[in-house]
């Protein structure tokens, strides 16, 4: 129904992109010699590259399809995912948490837990992370294949194997460097597709005021769908998002988003690839600026689709909310722009797969294989192992994608699964970094209890006994529960067990870590005001506040 008439030019645009992506892989291969080169780009990247890669890594299927779908379903309140969620969390990561990650020289996020707590905590987190990332990679592949089938009519297997094959080649060759370079390139191509799409869509609905009129009149959305905060009062939620402001601020903002952006290794890995602490801290801060504006090209198209596409919002089939952006592409873009937009979508989904695969191969190689199986092999051994882990990861992801094809709501399950591990993790990290008294076993039991709490809330809600409003609202409350239970158990177990001596916590805990950057003090170029993390962070937060103010009226 939404099959496009792609011309030779459109396919040529796509083919050129594939060639460039593979070319980057081959070029980056010449640079990869050591384990650090392969897994962390030799810690050599400038901040603007890691900053763009930081947000591009997340700009995959779940964001482009999922948040446009939320826009179509819940309205403007979807911006909370960006402005109360991602941006403050990214600022917090850059200003507060990055010195602990970067200065301790850990090679992954789970490795921080290994140093700070003990092996059981580390194994629990490494395993759950490895499983979750490879599943997310598979879901990305599947979502991409669905979109390509919708637009170009390709069989699912063809696009899954083609996209996975390309990702496999460029990561096996060039490791994290080629993943990061391709993410930056992908960022520009997806923007080249989404910005014109949004402008054309807006013109078609009569501009911003035309869109407002149509949203107000639309059933299921209505005037409140134009306001992020109105109708989110406790006890009387009338906003389509179906969650009150407390669960938005604490559940979505403080716990879910902070948990995701500050502890998900697929994100943090990009910052660890930066060339020095100062660049690592600026990575999420630089990323915050484009991130502020992404809702304009993701959520707004969702709204446009809600009022221009007849019958959107079907439970199954082509008219699901998830297809909001692909449907607009097929509806409004002529050949030429069409090629750019399809290439952008494919690029975004491939980068989403690649980001998860690079995080997966690092955790499997260093946190599982080196930590517990073959402990002191030469550096080259782990590079070879990492390449094999990449192949295995991609193959499992392909398998997941085919399984996902058999289950309609596979995507929801996996997102829920991911949130079970992410939400408590943030509590564990905050306590780990700021309370030196937190003991090794407290890390393990806090994490385990927090995860169980999230699982419990999820099933109590979905099976009926506990009514928490919309599924989205239930997720927010589940996150809050996970955070609180994790924090309480971590503190409780800490008080009952023996802490580590201070000398073992140096570089890992506040008060025992040098947070200022040696490079920044020595190099005058690093000292200019616009490179200071606090200044960058403050500006990002100020713009966020300003954007919210604009939408208050």
């Amino acid at each position, binding site marked *: 129904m939404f099959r496009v008439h792609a011309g030779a030019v459109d396919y040529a645009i796509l083919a050129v*992109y594939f060639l*460039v992506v593979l070319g*980057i892989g081959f070029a980056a291969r010449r*640079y990869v010699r050591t*384990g650090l080169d392969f897994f962390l780009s030799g810690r*050599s990247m400038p901040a603007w590259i890691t900053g763009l890669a930081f947000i591009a890594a997340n700009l995959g299927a779940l964001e482009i399809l999922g948040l446009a779908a939320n826009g179509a379903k819940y309205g403007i309140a979807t911006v909370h995912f960006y402005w109360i969620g991602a941006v403050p969390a990214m600022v917090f990561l850059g200003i507060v948490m990055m010195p602990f990650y970067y200065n301790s020289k850990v090679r992954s996020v789970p490795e921080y837990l290994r140093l700070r707590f003990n092996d059981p905590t580390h194994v629990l987190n490494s395993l759950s992370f490895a499983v979750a990332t490879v599943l997310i990679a598979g879901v990305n592949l599947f979502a991409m294949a669905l979109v390509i089938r919708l637009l170009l009519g390709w069989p699912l297997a063809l696009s899954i194997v083609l996209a996975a094959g390309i990702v496999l080649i460029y990561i096996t060759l060039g490791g994290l460097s080629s993943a990061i370079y391709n993410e930056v390139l992908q960022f520009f191509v997806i923007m080249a597709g989404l910005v*014109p799409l949004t402008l054309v869509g807006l*013109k078609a609905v009569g501009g911003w005021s035309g869109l407002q009129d149509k949203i107000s009149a639309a059933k299921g959305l209505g005037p409140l769908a134009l306001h992020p905060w109105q109708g989110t009062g406790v006890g009387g939620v009338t906003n389509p998002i179906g969650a009150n402001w407390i669960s938005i601020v604490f559940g979505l903002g403080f716990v879910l988003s902070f948990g995701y952006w500050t502890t998900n290794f697929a994100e943090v890995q990009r910052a660890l690839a930066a060339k020095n602490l100062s660049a690592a801290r600026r990575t999420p801060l630089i990323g915050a600026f484009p991130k502020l504006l992404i809702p304009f090209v993701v959520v707004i198209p969702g709204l446009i689709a809600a009022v221009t596409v007849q019958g959107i919002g079907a439970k199954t089939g082509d008219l699901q909310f998830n297809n909001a952006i692909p449907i607009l592409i097929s509806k409004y873009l002529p050949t030429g722009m069409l090629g750019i937009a399809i290439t952008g979508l494919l690029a975004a989904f491939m980068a989403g797969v690649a980001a998860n695969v690079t995080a997966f191969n690092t955790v499997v190689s*260093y946190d599982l294989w080196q930590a517990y199986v073959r402990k002191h092999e030469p*550096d080259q051994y782990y590079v070879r192992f990492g390449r094999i882990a990449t192949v295995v990861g991609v193959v499992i992801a392909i398998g997941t994608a085919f399984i996902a094809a058999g289950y309609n709501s596979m995507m929801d399950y996996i997102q829920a699964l991911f949130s079970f591990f992410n939400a408590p993790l943030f509590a564990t990290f905050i306590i780990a970094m700021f309370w030196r008294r937190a003991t090794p076993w407290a890390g393990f039991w806090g994490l385990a209890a927090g995860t169980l709490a999230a699982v419990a809330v999820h099933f109590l809600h979905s099976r009926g006994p506990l009514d928490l409003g919309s599924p989205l609202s239930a997720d927010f409350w589940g996150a809050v529960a996970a955070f609180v239970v994790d924090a309480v158990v971590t503190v409780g177990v800490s008080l009952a067990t023996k802490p580590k001596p201070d000398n073992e916590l140096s570089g890992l805990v506040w008060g025992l870590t040098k947070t200022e950057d040696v490079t920044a003090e020595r190099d005058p170029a690093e000292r200019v005001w616009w490179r200071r993390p606090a200044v960058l962070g403050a500006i990002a937060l100020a713009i966020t506040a300003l954007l919210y103010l604009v939408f208050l009226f």
Partner: protein
Amino acid sequence: MADSDPQSEARTQIAETEKAEAEEVETEDRAARAAGLFDLRMIIGGLLSLYGAVLFLMGLFASSAIRSKAAGININLWAGLALLIAGAFFLTWVLLRPLRAADLQDADPDRPNVE
């Protein structure tokens, strides 16, 4: 005793990785490869310019049917123009500030050690 402490083993493993990298960074070969490494800005600039030129040309010859599909906007023309400008920005940046081998080498040697 050091062997039984999981934390000290982790620190040893991290140090081994850092050592392999430090040895590699010191080699002449590394500097040569770094100098020959492609400049990402060039690739972004080149690809955006190419896409921009293609769209712009298509926009010049756009029929009215094509325009009416995109709500009356000659989207290929305008998007092509914007891409050409974006591409030119990156290529100018490369010309004004070429990549030096030193840019890839300045991972900070004075970074405080964990030990």
